[in-house]
């Protein structure tokens, strides 16, 4: 089975968020970048588990600059066999999806599996766009994925529960929590990752459909109103009269 895992690079959760150039650019000052958690912990690890059980190959693809090498090597250390980096600035989801779809067209993947939304733009776009560009079925928010005889059985989240579905491969999956257990790369993996192939390719000329015009930070930190623990009635009054939520 041949599996493609698109991975994104995002600021670490604990990063301080700031903007420059009149609030039009994200400030990378002092920011540590990591692999998007749902791409790494769930999509990549599940892909590696399936390959280890059933044989095949796991390829990771990243759209971004050379500074993503550390993240790509980590993916190889976790268990991917080779990597492709499309050398371009990933500013628009459609542009990114078009790069991934073009690569996927050149190789016959049985499964494309990526994480749910990235933790920077929280947009949840790339998986669905890749599926549509390739005219493939896609299932999102997948918590469980088993593959047998070319059919994927999945459990996906719906409002208030889960739904179990079957879809024939090839297929695109957007992974979320519970799909796999995060892996910490071991020494053998880290050493091996250094010699695994990483191909750098130029971007195709896909257009960009959206752009960010401005960013803004919340106007001011919230000022918490403390209520005495012996005066709980005051909380109920404030929730009703001031906040108007009950």
């Amino acid at each position, binding site marked *: 089975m041949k599996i493609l895992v698109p991975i994104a690079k995002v600021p670490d959760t604990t990063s301080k968020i700031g*903007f420059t150039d009149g609030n039009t650019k994200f400030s990378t000052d002092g920011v540590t970048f990591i692999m998007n958690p749902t791409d790494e912990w769930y999509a990549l690890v599940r892909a590696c588990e399936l390959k280890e059980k059933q044989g095949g190959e796991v390829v990771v693809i990243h759209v971004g600059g050379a500074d993503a090498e550390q993240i790509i090597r980590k993916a190889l250390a976790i268990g991917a066999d080779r990597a492709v980096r499309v050398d371009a600035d990933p500013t628009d989801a*459609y542009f990114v999806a078009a790069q991934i779809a073009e690569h996927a067209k050149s190789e016959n993947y049985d499964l494309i599996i990526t994480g749910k939304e990235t933790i920077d733009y929280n947009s949840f776009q790339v998986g*669905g766009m890749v599926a*549509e560009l390739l005219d493939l079925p896609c299932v999102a928010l997948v918590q469980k994925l088993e593959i047998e005889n070319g059919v994927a059985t999945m459990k996906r989240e719906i409002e208030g529960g889960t739904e179990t579905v079957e879809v024939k491969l090839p297929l695109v999956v957007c992974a979320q*929590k519970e799909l796999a257990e995060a892996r910490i790369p071991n020494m053998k993996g880290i050493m091996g990752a250094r010699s695994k192939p990483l191909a750098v390719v130029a971007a195709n000329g896909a257009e960009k459909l959206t752009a960010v*015009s401005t*960013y803004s930070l919340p106007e001011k930190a919230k000022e*918490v*109103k*403390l209520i005495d623990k012996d005066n709980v009635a005051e909380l109920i009054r404030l929730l009703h009269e001031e906040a108007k939520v009950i």
Partner: protein
Amino acid sequence: MAVLSFVEVSEGKIKKASVEAAYYGSKTAEALGTDSVAVVLGEANAEELATLGQVGVKKVLHAADAKLNHFDSRAYTKAVAAAADAAGADVVVLSFNNNGKLLAPRLSVKLKAGYVPGAVELPQFNGGSASVKKNVFSGKASATFTVATGKKVISVNPNSLSPVRGGGSATVETFNAALTDADFNVVVKGVDKVVGEIPLTEAELVVSGGRGLKGPENWHLVTDLAKELGAATACSRAVADVDWRPHHEHVGQTGLTVRPNLYIAVGISGAIQHLAGVNGSKVIVVVNTDPEAPFFKAADYGIVGDAFEVMPKVLEEYRKFKAAH
């Protein structure tokens, strides 16, 4: 020209998130001086669909094909694109809910339309381009996206706006999405819904507990109040990880994102990963013994105190309030 909203029906009722999407669609149509049209896929009661008129929808295109009763992203994309075509829609609005999160980006590709996911405000139009604000960095900042493509797709963050209902009634028209068997890929084998509980992501009120409650046997402190309020229950990651509570209640960066009107956090310190899942809540109440708990910085109201002492009082005072109102 028209604005088309995608509306989902679950167990005979229009989903709350879809009412918000339809309302957003109607407001957008109003700003553009055009009509608000909705599309519904799968079997549904026409009387229920007509109530979309209350949030400004003029016409509902209803593809009552039983094959569309279950969500299949590829087939749904074709059907909604066909509806957009039939309605002459330039803007398609969906909810940024479980199905919308997948359907919207597919539609964006299908219609070659710029897409803004998770809008928190109505769009601003300037000539042919639209500016739409959304939350980014897990609610730590906002970004305004500009979409200049002729067609546009917008998904709306649940609980971002409160639909105002009027007295209208929408006309319901049968719509043929012209799908063939080859358009369907997904076979549904089973649905496992937690019965009798309010779905967390649809809830307007949420009561959530953390490690401060010391053990699953103390969860009545959360559930009793939730029941009285008609709220959903949630928990922190630490609590789900030790199986005090089911995983589907875990709210945070790697769990669910909720945006209720009221989020009451009991015995949760408020690590940044947890806050990422609740930042969008309208009002946050924190009960914690530790006055230095980071959650207080993100809260609107706080009580420094022991949950075992405070929560029974909250329940009692709320019961009194309910009796008086």
